[in-house]
């Protein structure tokens, strides 16, 4: 069997240029068949998702927006090691490191922290490699259904610490849950 005639999908049809018979040439039979197909489609289940009211179901391993985590005491975990930025295939992450002052011990867990931490949401492909690379378990891709909202400027898609760091209330709630 040659590759020309083999059908991988099982649906291959040989093209033929044979002359149509008279019955075929008035198309009526073919038209009737086609109309039957479309008629059946009218009663099929509709594939439309009425967007704002309905949303697509997400996959259970879905990766959503990033979050920079806090530990049980509410301190930021990130130590600005830059491994996430290194692992990022889209080069979406950039950061500036700073040294923690003694009076900031309750704010940052490590002695070095990220004073600026930015992810460009236009570049990010939500692959989750940053999450895997992080030695401090500081960055996670959440399952939240909040997305990078549409906007008209590119700058607005560069998410800084305001958008990324876990809100304090959430950290408080988490630690309460952990104690209970």
């Amino acid at each position, binding site marked *: 069997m040659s590759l020309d005639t083999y059908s991988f999908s099982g649906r291959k049809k040989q093209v033929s240029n044979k002359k149509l018979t008279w019955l075929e*040439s*008035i*198309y*009526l039979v073919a*038209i009737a068949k*086609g*109309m039957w*197909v*479309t*008629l059946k*489609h*009218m009663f*099929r*289940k*509709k*594939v*439309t998702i*009425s967007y704002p009211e309905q949303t697509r179901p997400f996959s259970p391993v879905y990766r959503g927006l990033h979050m920079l985590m806090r530990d049980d005491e509410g301190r930021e975990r990130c130590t600005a090691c830059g491994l996430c930025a290194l692992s990022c295939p889209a080069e979406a992450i950039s950061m500036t490191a700073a040294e923690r002052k003694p009076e900031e011990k309750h704010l940052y867990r490590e002695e070095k922290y990220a004073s600026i931490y930015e992810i460009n949401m236009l570049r990010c492909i939500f692959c989750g490699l940053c999450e895997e690379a992080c030695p401090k378990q500081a960055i996670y891709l959440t399952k939240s259904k909040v997305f990078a909202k549409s906007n008209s400027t590119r700058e607005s898609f560069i998410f800084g610490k305001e958008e990324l760091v876990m809100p304090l209330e959430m950290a408080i709630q988490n630690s309460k849950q952990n104690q209970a």
Partner: protein
Amino acid sequence: MDNTILIEKSVIILVVFAITMLMAMYMTLAERKIAAWIQDRIGPNRAGKGGILQPLADGLKLFAKEEYAPDTPNKFLFVLGPTISMTIALITSAVLPWGDKLHLFGRDIILQSADINVGLLYIFAVLSVSVYGIMIGGWASNNKYSLMSAMRAASQMISYEIAMGLSIIALLLMTQTLSLREIALQQNGMNWNIFYQPLGFLIFWICSFAETNRNPFDLAECEQELIGGYHTEYSSMRMGFFLFAEYASMFVSSAILSILYLGAYNYPGMDWAVENWGVNIANVIGMLVLFIKICFFIFVYMWVRWTLPRFRYDQLMNLGWKKLIPLALFNILVTAVVILLLK
């Protein structure tokens, strides 16, 4: 007496006009819905409940658009094009019988704007003029695509009008009259012409697709090669008129089909209904029946549109001249022989 007949006819004309317009409006919605269903979609459903206000929104949008005319020396013709299309689509309905008669205020009201004895001829005359709307519009657009589309529309209409006329001749041999009212009356009960003229009906049906410029014969406005054809240069409500005229003429041609072949307003048991329920109720049902038949044809128009691809130009001509015309002639011959034998 004269005055009452004037009022009576005016009312009928107004009602027919209003219904044609309303139907054309809601056919746009129906088309979009049917297209959606065939493609497994839902279709417009945001304007009003289930999209019921969508035609109004569309109309409003068209009205709000800028009225733009290309730099053409034929400004007058440019406006005339859509005007003709619209006028022709509407005046065809003048001779169509929408029902037998109503008995109101002690008089018989014939449900027809004008019962002229050459009704069928009138319809053909008017339908032939309808191509001028497209031709003039395409010519005045001063755009090669529009002009090409106009030429296509003209040649297509001429080809298919012949087959259409020939298929009607076979019908005329049977009915012996050109008056649409009499043709409708002859089909009393289940005596519908389609049972005597199945081939003629088929040919007429196919030709009416071509006459209304609908898919698979919509070569005049094909998007891919002619970017919309004769209405490329039109905008705002002038374009709306073209589109509207297409739907209005679809409605009218569905009505013609139902009246000529599918027994018009007749339904089985109409005589019984007249005797037992009175003329009025029987005829109101008759009008509804006619309406249902029309809706059926309209549905098929749309169903076909979303099923079939467009014909290639040579296929179109082949089908018209080499298939339909010989078939129609054959149909005439058979009809004539059978009538002669039955005498």
